[in-house]
């Protein structure tokens, strides 16, 4: 019984520890392609506030263009991704981030799937035991 529980716990926690793919170190010696790629990568995580359901990478709105230019400038200035995301959410709110951040008001959003999974596991264990 405890072994099964342990197994499920390990399974659940291994899902929780997914690598954050967008953690880069500041770098001023990025070449042209790297700057473009990084700009696109960040842009794909930023909501276009004019079209609302597109990222600024996909949008052709003026604001999206300006924000792409701004992000590129900040990358060249050597700002980290986190600093750029913070810069944008300080001005436009967390709504501009397509990945909702882990905060008190989003805790349910992030934890509910795991809660459901855990309670599901418990129910399954109880049934299997029978």
């Amino acid at each position: 019984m405890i072994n099964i529980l342990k197994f499920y716990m390990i399974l659940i926690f291994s899902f929780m520890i997914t690598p954050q793919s967008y953690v880069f170190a500041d770098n001023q010696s990025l070449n042209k392609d790297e700057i473009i790629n990084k700009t696109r990568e960040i842009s794909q995580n930023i909501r276009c506030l004019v079209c609302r359901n597109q990222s600024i990478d996909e949008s052709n709105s003026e604001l999206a263009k300006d924000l792409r230019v701004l992000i590129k400038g900040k990358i060249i200035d050597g700002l980290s991704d986190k600093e750029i995301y913070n810069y944008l959410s300080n001005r436009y709110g967390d709504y501009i981030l397509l990945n909702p951040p882990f905060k008190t008001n989003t805790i349910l959003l992030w934890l509910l799937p795991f809660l459901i999974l855990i309670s599901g596991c418990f129910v399954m264990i109880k049934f299997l035991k029978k």
Partner: protein
Amino acid sequence: MSYNVKIIKMLPLILFFSIVLVSGLVLYQVKYDLKDTKELKSQLIGKSIPLISIPEINYDKKINKNINFNDFKNNIFAVNFFASWCAPCRIEAPVVEELSKFIPVIGIAYKDNAEDNKKFLNDYGNPYDKIGLDNLGKVAIEWGVYGVPETFLINRNGIIIYRHAGPLLYDVYKTDILPLLE
């Protein structure tokens, strides 16, 4: 069947209905907040004016200077982002005119040029105490502007207390802005 097993058998059902209930409540809220979600809340409310300098619009190519917000210190004043190419800005022009009778209004011409802007002011009136030019849209981003027109109110301490996105219509002016001026 023991009492315990019964409860466990009921658990998925209870869980299901609690999820339905929670999501139902959330959706209900969203439906009634729809008006609020359309207009985004400004993150700058309660903060001081962004530090970025704004050049004054230059109609006759003389001297270049920046707008000095200190000129308006100890006064409630408004900052209105507008543009000559922006249709809703024409609609709100009379209301901005009305507002300018009570408090100073600083206009910031967004992605505009002096020539078109002058024409716009000739056609729709000039309610502005000072006009700045934001030809690249950088000032707008610092202010968290996502579309023109937008109107901000700044209190005596230089703190932004209100933002309206979209044309300033009379009912917004009456219900939201006038009470803040008292």
